[in-house]
């Protein structure tokens, strides 16, 4: 197990060789257990822990400054357009909440991409998994639609695809066009941190969080730059800089130890609050 975890599946040859070694070590008694681990090595474990955790790779995160949010929902709409979503299938929602003293503020909520994601732990087929760069991703071909992840998510971040995919999102073309394939009816969908943009951008040597083509649509669409995205392992990235300057930060439902990758700057932390409160 630990052998497989440590290993980075660089190529098929090396992973096949390690598998052979593993079986040799396991011996006849551990045969059954060996088969189990082999399965895990092939599917979940290799995908879930295949590197980046040691700080060498990317670690994507998002910072949302609640003080800058004006509740315009552009993040929601651009997300809908890019993922071709109907209005009732929103990955990112903006709600009006109150502080303890009763002041209202806008809370926009994408998927938290938790480090200890309850959805990843509960999925019976490993259809949802933690990428090495911290993104909680979905394998839509593997999902059986049992909706356990939906029940387990403390942030209501997951939506089930109840109907056939729609032809054109109501937010297209105003907020952009579909960039990812449609998902079939009967699977659970979620925010991807626009991993398609990140992956394609890195191939073209763009910097996610800096270059708009490689940055999540919601971050690009935000008119007040309330959302900052970037590599939390890179001290020079916009998010690391912003985090080092932030006086206080907040993560939603931190008591559940889900370790969200989406961090908030709580309301009224700034003296120069331009958009909210007084």
């Amino acid at each position, binding site marked *: 197990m630990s052998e497989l975890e440590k290993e980075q599946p660089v190529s098929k040859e090396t992973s096949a060789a390690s598998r052979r070694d593993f079986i040799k070590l396991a011996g006849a008694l551990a045969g059954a257990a060996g088969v*189990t681990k082999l*399965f*895990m090595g092939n*599917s*979940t474990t290799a995908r879930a822990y295949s590197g980046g955790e040691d700080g060498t790779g990317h670690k994507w995160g998002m910072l949302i400054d609640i003080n800058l949010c004006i509740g315009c929902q552009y993040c929601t709409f651009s997300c809908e357009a890019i993922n071709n979503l109907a209005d009732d299938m929103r990955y990112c929602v903006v*709600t009006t*909440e*109150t*502080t*303890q003293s009763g002041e209202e503020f806008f*809370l926009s*909520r994408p998927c938290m991409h938790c480090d200890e994601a*309850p959805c990843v*732990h*509960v*999925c*019976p*087929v*490993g*259809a949802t998994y933690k990428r090495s760069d911290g993104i909680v991703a979905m394998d839509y071909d*593997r*999902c*059986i*639609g*049992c*909706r*356990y992840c*939906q*029940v*387990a*998510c*403390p*942030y*209501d971040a*997951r*939506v*089930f*695809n*109840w*109907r*056939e995919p729609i032809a054109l999102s109501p937010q297209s073309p105003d907020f952009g066009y579909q960039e990812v394939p449609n998902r*079939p*009816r*009967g*699977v*659970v969908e979620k925010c991807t941190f626009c991993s398609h943009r990140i992956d394609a951008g890195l191939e073209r040597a763009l910097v996610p969080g800096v270059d708009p083509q490689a940055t999540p649509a919601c971050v690009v669409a935000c008119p007040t730059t309330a959302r900052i995205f970037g590599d939390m392992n890179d001290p020079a990235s916009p998010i690391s800089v912003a985090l080092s300057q932030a006086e206080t930060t*907040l993560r*939603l*439902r931190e*008591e*559940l130890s*889900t370790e969200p990758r989406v961090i*908030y700057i*709580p309301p009224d932390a700034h003296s120069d609050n331009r958009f909210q409160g007084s």
Partner: protein
Amino acid sequence: MQTTINYPKLRFGSKYVDIFPYWISLLFLGVLFGLVGVFFVLRDGLQVTGLSNKVPWGLWISIDLSSISLGGSAFVFGVIVYLLRLKRFEVIGKLAVLLGFLGYSTAGMVLLFDLGQPFRFWHPIVFWQPHSLLWEVTMCVVLYLTVLVAELIPVIVEHPFFDGHELHEKYPIIKKTAAFAKTLTHWLHKAGPILAVVGLTLSLLHQASLGATYSVLFGRGVWFNQSAPVQFVFSAMSGGIALLFFMGTLVFRVMRPGMVSDDTLYDVARIAGGITLLLTYLRLWDWAVTNYYSFDRNISLQTEALNAVAPYSLAFWLGQALLPAIAGSVLLSAKSVKNFRYLMAFSVIPIFAAILTRWNYNFAGLIATSTYDPYTPIIRVSSYTPTWVEFAVASLVISYWLLMFSFAARYLPFQSKHSEH
């Protein structure tokens, strides 16, 4: 020995009418109605249900959990018959195997329709994710259903049809199949103790994991409920054995008098009663412990949800504490009560308590969620109303259960010709 079976008859005026054909026709109607629902589910997907992103699990999962719990007598009696070798429970053990098989096959059937992608039902078997409770439950249920089939085959092969029938001469393939079934039975009978151990292991694993399935749902009201796994195991034993007593009295005392002694049936009732009392005791402690730990603000919100709509509501106190305590005491003292009408009436309570527990966890527990906003989280109670399609599929699986049970109760001999040696 050929078994004589008394069929239940209703008296209309001076005539006694065998209600069996009418009852079966009714159940077939239920199956037909269900198939209409199945058609819509498979054609249009889960949008035909009343489920939503707020309440993703509903009626079907509750039926699934309930029918698994009511199959809980099979593993207990597997142990009693094959490991403790208490011969007098052998015949009633066969009924337990039948109830187990019906419970698990019903659960599998209803789960199939509950999947968004029903034709990917085999994915958990291929794509392993051992961290997931649901994966473990799926694997255990699949394996245990196999064990139950292996235990059920000998019960079915007792039917005289397998000894010889005019069809055997007409179609040699049937004769060969029957002969193969008899050989298989011989080996399965020898494997009985192994099957019992495997069945016990698998049952304890997945019945507990079904409880734990809800204990890891941080976002929902039910999660802070520490003994859910143990409660699920005991409630499956209590409800399952109470059902075994009820059905056992019907199948043996009413339909096949003299086959199982009254004392044996009393003992079944006493086991059910004892476990029911144990479960009630456990539930009280669970309630106390959960409230004791509710000093934290977020936990106290969850506990508030538990007290309001989820497991510790009025339904809990009445259905899962007071009534089972009474029923458990009556069933435990079956040998003093010695009245099968009373005992059967009281055995209904643990059965419904087991169903109510699942209902409570799955409906009430999931409907209450606490919101994720950072400063003023509240308990939000969503709503869910099953649609006719959901009731149709429910009617399909319940009719299937009753249909199979009715045929088995009428036609299976339930007595081994080899049981004398």
